[in-house]
Structure formats: C-alpha cells, structure tokens
C-alpha cells in the first residue's frame, strides 16, 4: 500500500518537475519578453508543485530523502513522469500543444484529487488546481491563436498535435498502482476523467480549427519508468550541478 502510494505521488511529482524543467528551457529564448515570463511563471508553478509532492514522497518512503535528493539523485528509470512531459520543446506550437494537453489533464486530476482520502494530497491538489486553472487559460488561448492564426501557425500546430497525440493514451491507462489508489479512495478512477478531458480538448480544437488525431493503440509507460530517449538529456542537464558538486547550496 505505502509502496503504491509512494509510486503514485512520485508520478504526480515527476510529471510536474519534468514539464517545469522543459518550460524553463525557454527562459531567454521565448518569442517575446511577455511569453518568456509567462512560460517561466508556469514553470515555477510546476516546480513548486513538484517540491511539495517530492517532500511528501520522501516522507512516505521514510528513508530520510528530501525533495532535492529525489529530484537530483534519481536516474531515468526511477523517474515516473508521463512520457508527454519529457517531449522536447520543439517550436512554440509544439510547446503549447504539449502544455495544453497536460494542463487539461492536470485540471481534471487535481480537481478530483481534492476529494482524496489522503489529506496531504488533497491539500496539495487544492493549491495546484488554482495554478492549473491559469495554465489552461494560457495554453488554451494560445492553441486558438495558433490554430486559427496564420497558415503557417495552423500547419505547425496541427503537426505538433499529430506528433504528440500518441502520448495522451498514457494519461488514462490505469495500471495496478492507479487501481489500488482508486480503490483506497486516494486517487480518482482515471477512465472517469477521460470524458471531461476529451470534451475540453475537443472544444478548444474546434475553436482552433484543428483536427483531433486518431488514437493509436500503443501506450507509453513513462509512469512505470519506461521513457522516450529525451528524458536522459533533460536529467543530465538538470542534475549536473548536484552530481558534480554534491550538496552544493546557494
């Protein structure tokens, strides 16, 4: 039970941390100063969520590991984030599509987690939900601007959507950990979140004049530690300092 709970909390934490790190890569490179700050704000929200969740995971684990230990000293296969989160930034359209698909998922997830029987998780979810409401607003409005923008922005956004869609299956593919958490009333039944996520995505895609890609049968298993080739590079950059100078502080 506590092992499943640990894994579950790490999945939430790692998805936020990895996505936050990805967005941080935009800092200094975004198309406009305003977007630079916008993306950095979302990044910092996500890293903030990850900090709370990793601290909690460390407590569940009970081996005295802190948020920093868990973030900086775990290898790729110990990371349990959704594979979507680690996908490269690509162009701005690609970043926005990835963001929107995850934002819309986290919105449903955190809303449901507010009712979790795990009081700590419910508390973290309530805080994260407020942030996520803004994230969705931000990414959804960009989906519409890009999709219903110029010919080029439409083409790039549709392409990004086609490329990233395959990673959405994992959002709702429950495994033994998800099922055990759902039975214990700690986590929602993932399949029950799917229709609302789908409806929100469809609504935005319609407004953005984008085509919803067809579902592919294969699901990735980032949350079991099976990652695409991109995560290793991300972790190498994120963890370099800590590994080169263990215990370094400000």
């Amino acid at each position: 039970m506590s092992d499943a709970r640990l894994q579950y909390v790490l999945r939430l934490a790692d998805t936020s941390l990895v996505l936050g790190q990805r967005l941080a890569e935009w800092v200094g490179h975004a198309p406009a100063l305003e977007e630079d700050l916008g993306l950095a704000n979302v990044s910092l929200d996500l890293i903030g969520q990850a900090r709370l969740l990793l601290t909690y995971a460390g407590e569940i684990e009970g081996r005295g590991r802190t948020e920093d230990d868990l973030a900086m000293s775990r290898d790729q296969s110990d990371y349990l984030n959704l594979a979507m989160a680690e996908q490269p930034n690509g162009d701005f359209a690609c970043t926005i599509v990835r963001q929107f698909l995850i934002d819309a998922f986290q919105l449903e997830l955190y809303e449901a987690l507010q009712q979790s029987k795990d009081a700590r998780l419910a508390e973290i979810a309530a805080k994260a939900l407020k942030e996520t409401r803004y994230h969705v607003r931000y990414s959804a409005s960009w989906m519409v601007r890009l999709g219903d923008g110029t010919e080029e922005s439409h083409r790039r956004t549709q392409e990004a959507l086609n490329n990233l869609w395959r990673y959405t299956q994992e959002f709702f593919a429950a495994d033994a950990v998800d099922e055990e958490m759902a039975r214990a009333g700690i986590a929602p039944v993932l399949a029950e979140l799917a229709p609302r996520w789908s409806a929100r995505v469809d609504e935005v895609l319609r407004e953005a004049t984008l085509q919803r890609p067809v579902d592919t049968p294969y699901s990735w298993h980032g949350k079991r530690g099976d990652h695409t080739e991109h995560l290793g590079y991300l972790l190498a950059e994120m963890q370099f300092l800590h590994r080169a100078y263990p215990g370094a502080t400000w």
Partner: protein
Amino acid sequence: MTRVPESEWPLFEVFIRARSGLEHKHVGSVHAADARQAIEHARDVYTRRQEGVSIWVVRSSDITASDPSDAEALFEPAKDKVYRHPTFYAIPEEVKNL
C-alpha cells in the same frame, strides 16, 4: 497615429490596483495581440510579486497625451496658488490613503 506593422503586437498600457479600495495605477506596458492577451501578459509581467488584485489594460494608441511644449501654459499657472493644497487643516489619523 503610427501604424503598427502586422508582424508586431500592439502596445498596451497596464494599470494595477494594489488592494481593494485603492485606485488603479499605471505600472508599465506590454505587447499583446489583443486585450485579452494583454491582461495575461500584464498578469505574468507585473503581478509576480503579489502587486495587485485587479488589472486594466488600454491600447497605448487610444491614449491622448498633452503636448510637452504646452507644459508652460498648462501647468505654470498653478504654481503660485498654494492655497489649493489641502494643507491647512489636520487629517484625522483614521484616514489612511489620502
């Protein structure tokens, strides 16, 4: 009015209300495609440290400004009329934001 090239977002002036009951104050400007996005940009650029509870944005091109060369005619005449300042009576301590 100068035309904004299509490739560039127009400029918006940003006004922020720090607390309920206070007035909106000009804090700076942002570029944005439209007013809705200007609100988002203003939120991201100017309220990161809890500076506000409300945002106004207005297209900079919609603002009519006084001409600096008129400054003398506009503002000098007020110079010798100190009696217009409300400094001749005591302000009660309870009045905070005057």
